[in-house]
């Protein structure tokens, strides 16, 4: 009963409502940011489990020699440590890759149909090599070894995620963690401000309590209780709102049978961690309110 029946009329003040909205909004935003980080992390973990595929390109060669070269290089690549398999990319596939690039010329080519681009142009020959997940092949050394067999060869590496994609996902993870933390921090800053404003606003009551012999801790405890309640309520609201957004964006399309907007789902562990955000924030807010109150009171 003592904890709900505060001596200070904190509940009635508009600051209190302000507090509720601020913690609600900031917790919501923090949860969204951390959800982004979780999704990115999920994608990174998933990619790390896939075999890593690099493509070796041999320079164009006369049709007769080409097959032999490709066979020799493929055999060498299969003996590489960590390599799961090595397979030449078929002519049809190369045609498929190159065709659209020459589309402008395609219209007038209808007459001589049937002959693929790979036949007509001296295109490079490609070999895909897959490495087992977890191995980190030294692509520089590999390239040099291939070039000893066939000068002019190159290795194209898309990286674990396709190099650009991978950087983006890692960036998103960092961004999510950073902005999430900033939002939590902002909530704490707001709590300090609100607590100090409250103390100023209720200074007559605070003075009266002290005049009756109340210690700083007695007064601070009221702000603590009040902040806990507000942060908890606001945090729950913010969390619920954020989760609705996340579910809507991530899982919504799948429910409607549409293609997913983002190609990853939240894992059960993510849900647990995300639901910790409002709880941890509420605790931090409570602690912050008490600290701010005690420190401000000590100065007067």
């Amino acid at each position, binding site marked *: *009963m003592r904890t709900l*029946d505060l001596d200070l009329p904190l509940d009635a003040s508009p600051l209190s409502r302000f507090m509720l909205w601020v913690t609600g909004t900031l917790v919501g935003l923090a949860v969204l940011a951390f959800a982004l980080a979780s999704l990115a992390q999920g994608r990174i973990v998933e990619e790390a489990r896939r075999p890593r595929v690099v493509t070796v390109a041999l320079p164009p060669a006369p049709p007769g020699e080409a097959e032999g070269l490709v066979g020799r290089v493929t055999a060498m690549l299969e003996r590489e440590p960590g390599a799961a398999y090595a397979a030449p990319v078929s002519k049809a596939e190369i045609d498929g890759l190159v065709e659209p690039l020459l589309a402008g010329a395609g219209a007038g080519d209808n007459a001589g149909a049937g002959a693929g681009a790979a036949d007509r142009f001296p295109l490079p020959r490609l070999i895909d090599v897959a490495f087992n997940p977890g191995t980190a092949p030294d692509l520089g050394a590999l390239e040099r070894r291939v070039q000893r067999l066939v000068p002019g060869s190159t290795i194209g590496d898309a990286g674990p995620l396709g190099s650009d994609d991978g950087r983006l996902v890692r960036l998103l993870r960092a961004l999510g963690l950073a902005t999430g933390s900033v939002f939590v921090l902002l909530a704490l800053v707001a709590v300090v401000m609100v607590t100090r404003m409250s103390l100023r606003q209720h200074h007559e009551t605070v003075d009266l309590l*002290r*005049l*009756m012999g109340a210690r700083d801790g007695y007064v601070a405890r009221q702000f603590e209780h009040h902040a806990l309640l507000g942060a908890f309520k606001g945090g729950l609201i913010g969390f619920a709102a954020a989760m609705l957004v996340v579910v809507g964006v991530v899982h919504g399309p799948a429910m409607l049978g549409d293609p997913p907007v983002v190609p990853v789902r939240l894992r059960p562990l993510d849900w647990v961690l995300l639901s910790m955000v409002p709880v941890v924030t509420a605790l931090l807010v409570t602690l912050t309110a008490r600290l701010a109150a005690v420190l401000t009171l*000590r100065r007067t």
Partner: protein
Amino acid sequence: MRYDGAAEVLHDITLTLKSGSFYFLTGPVGAGKTSLLRLLSLSHPAYRGTIRVFGRDFALVGREEAARLRQRIGVVFQDFRLLEHLSAFDNVALPLRIAGADDERVAASVPEMLRWLGLDAVMEAPPRQLSMGERQLVCIARAVVTRPALLLADEPTSNVDPERAERLMHLFVQLHGLGTSVVLSTHSQDLPRRHPFPGLRLEAGRLVAAA
């Protein structure tokens, strides 16, 4: 003593109140009665000179001890200073709770006090629903419920009818009999006439008569 940025309101006051005594404090409007009581209640830090209460120099005690000293002082404020969002009951219970009393003691002392003052009917009402006289009685109940060693009562009978005023004086005299020191400021000419306790008279911030 001076208030923030204002002129000095009390000058050259030297005063020793005997423990367990009863004083009337009188003087015209703005003489400094409330200001003097404020000094005695240890709630105003801006003064020159020395204030000793319960034998301790206020300037030298720490935060912790100041709190303890204050718990032994009961104050009836001229402007009541009830907490608007608390019921009459909770207002009276406040100093007990601050002093760490358990719920049992609160439940025993508070209703008894309020009943004795004739406030049974309004125990759960917040101050804004009380008449001015009722508010003053609640404020008095709050000041005496802890049986303080020093009672500072600023115009405690200004808003009550003559019968109630007599009843309150009876209460104060009883407390005094139990060892409480009392300083009671009043504009009334009746009270000092009927209760022959020593008087202190302030005029324009100076003590002009002390007994």
